[in-house]
């Protein structure tokens, strides 16, 4: 029992940090600009593919720096030439623009790199088990991901809450004209914020690429869960996203570890009733539904507390 709890907690925390790594950029963009970026997972995918290509050419560590910068530059271009023009038509139009972008990016990536998974490997420097708990290895690479996530969290929090830059950025969201009158270029502020958010997604891609599968459908398979994280945590709240990542990952991990179903709790149904909705629900195990639990959490939190766990506003 102790083993199960310790291992599940460890797995949950590691997975949670991966989720946070992915969603940090999304929540930064949202908190600063109010744009729900549907293409965020696509930027993450671009990061992974750039990371793969640059690793092949110049090695993993330079790629770790260069690939996010490239993705950030693409993000800035998207803001400058796309979102800025769409801004006047409202948030729905902005959201739909990123929606279309996600479609296009996926196809462009598969045009260039093909549709099969790529052989993107963990760098040799980190390819060893860091420690062993109850005879289960924990690879150094996962610890590296954890450290990067925590560093990003702390750094973002400090920049946004403790520096002048953060102040201007936050003011630009609520009072763009005032900030403009004070002599700051609001357009550029937004562009940089979007670029930073995209670069964070790119960074997540470079790092998560070797740990997960680098394939052209990776954006589509991860996209929805990121929204769950930032909406659950509270739209635009960085600490909220951090907590939500942990909560969702832990809930999911522990759900997998449990074998219980209604049938095991209350005994099997009378077999003579035959298959029905009730028997389906009765026999499904908690582990079976684990990956859809986050969506359940999302719906419940939005109904009970529409601003999310730690959010301050609704939209």
């Amino acid at each position, binding site marked *: 029992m102790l083993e199960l709890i310790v291992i599940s907690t460890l797995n949950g925390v590691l997975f949670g940090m991966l989720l946070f790594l992915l969603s940090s950029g999304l929540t930064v963009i949202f908190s600063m600009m109010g744009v*729900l970026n549907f293409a965020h997972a696509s930027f993450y995918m671009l990061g992974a593919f750039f990371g793969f290509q640059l690793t092949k050419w110049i090695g993993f560590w330079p790629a770790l720096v260069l690939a996010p910068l490239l993705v950030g530059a693409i993000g800035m271009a998207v803001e400058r030439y*796309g979102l800025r*023009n*769409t801004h006047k*038509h409202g*948030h*729905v*139009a902005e*959201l*739909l*623009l990123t*929606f*279309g*972008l*996600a*479609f*296009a*990016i*996926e*196809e*462009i990536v598969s*045009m*260039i790199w093909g549709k099969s998974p790529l052989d993107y490997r963990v760098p040799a420097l980190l390819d060893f088990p860091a420690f062993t708990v109850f005879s289960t290895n924990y690879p150094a690479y996962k610890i590296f991901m954890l450290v990067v996530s925590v560093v990003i969290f702390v750094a973002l929090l400090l920049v946004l809450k403790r520096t002048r830059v953060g102040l201007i950025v936050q003011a630009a969201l609520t009072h763009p004209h005032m900030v403009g009158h004070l002599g700051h270029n609001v357009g550029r502020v937004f562009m940089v914020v979007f670029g930073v958010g995209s670069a964070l997604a790119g960074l997540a891609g470079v790092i998560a690429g070797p740990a997960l599968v680098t394939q052209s459908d990776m954006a589509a398979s991860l996209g*929805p869960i990121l*929204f*769950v994280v930032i*909406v659950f945590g509270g*739209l635009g709240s960085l600490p909220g996203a951090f907590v939500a990542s942990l909560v969702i990952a832990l809930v999911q991990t522990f759900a997998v570890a449990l074998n219980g179903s209604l049938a095991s709790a209350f005994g099997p149904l009378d077999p003579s009733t035959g*298959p*029905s*909705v009730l*028997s*389906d*629900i009765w026999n*499904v195990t908690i582990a*079976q*539904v684990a*990956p*859809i639990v986050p*969506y*359940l959490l*999302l*719906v419940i939190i*939005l*109904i009970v507390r*529409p601003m999310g766990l730690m959010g301050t506003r*609704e*939209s």
Partner: protein
Amino acid sequence: MTTTTTSTPKLATDPAGDNLRFYGVWLAGILALVVLPLVFSSGGSVTSFSLIGIAIVFALSYNILLGQTGLLSFGHAVHYGLGGFAACHMMNAVVSHGWPIPLPFIPLFGGLGGLVFAVIIGWVMTKRAGTVFAMISLGIGELVASSSLILRSVFGGEAGITTDRTALPKMFGWSFGPQIQVYYLIAFWLVLSAIAMYALTRTPLGRISNAVRDNPERVQFIGYDPHVVRYIAFCFAGFFAGVAGGLAAINFEIANSAYLGAIQSGLVLFSTFIGGTAYFFGPILGAILVTYLQLGLTSVTSVWQLYFGIIFIGIVMFSPGGIAGLVMMHRPLVRAGTLGTVIPAYLVAIVPTLALACGVILSIEIVARFSGGEPINLFGIGFKPQSPVTWITAAVLLVVGGFVARLSWLRVADAWDRAATVARDRGYLA
């Protein structure tokens, strides 16, 4: 069908002529539905028309949410899918119990399926509009799609539920085996639903929905609860999406989890937005175009999704009103008789724009087919993706076409402004 759903001030027309034109448009639409399969009678086109008909009902139902009430949903396919399942189960039940219900009534049960779910889930979903609603719809969509694989007794798991439409009691001696009979069934329901949904926009409910979309606070001030209004609109949208799902179930004779999924929800959002949400006929155009592209593009290029994305981005950026918005932009000019001054500018702009489009298509296909080496066939001209001649052609088309197109569209804008000013002076508002 050309009447706007947002009320625009109308000036200087006699009501009788307006009425005539209004019914004329509807009658022409119905006539077209009847005649189309007689003109294009090949099996493939009748199948396409059937699919387009279903897509139109679905897109119109979505516009009750997006266009009328301002609710952006990422899970509208849930109602479509549940409608499909309800219809399939009903058809099987009719057959096994021998009830005297002929096939043409089945879509009604599909609608009820969509409606029941909307009634149950809608109240909590529509508490808030905006992002909260969008996100709940996303979550509900995922939940229902995932549960459909768990609740096997209802949804039939992966394989879904199959049915046989010809086993139902006959009506007018029609067995509904041949596709053409199914087409007319779909066309019938399309007309019925379109009229009903149009009428809905004319009711006080439709009007107050518009108000809720534009300014919920003021609606509250005048004594309506925006939540209730959103809820009712949501239920109507669910019902008509269910009708569309029921029609799809009849057409395919199968319902499965693909009906409910995110792809289906995304497609209806695409169709509605591309068509234009501000006008009733917008989603109709969008559904026709998207379904046609979906059927046509996939057989000519493997990267159709990229074209979809580009078209979508282009519409969001350059014409947020969709195709309908573009068309209706010209209405005051037509009425004022100044459209003629714009047409030459348009004609000039078409050439470089087409060149630009060809350049884009060529570049995309070069990249897409580079490794495979399949030839590109553009307007009957063959291009080899590996040959530098093709690359240069594409680059020239892109750069020159893009540059000239930009210039010529600026001229169009000028001409348009002049024509619009004249129209405004003559009393026709844009």
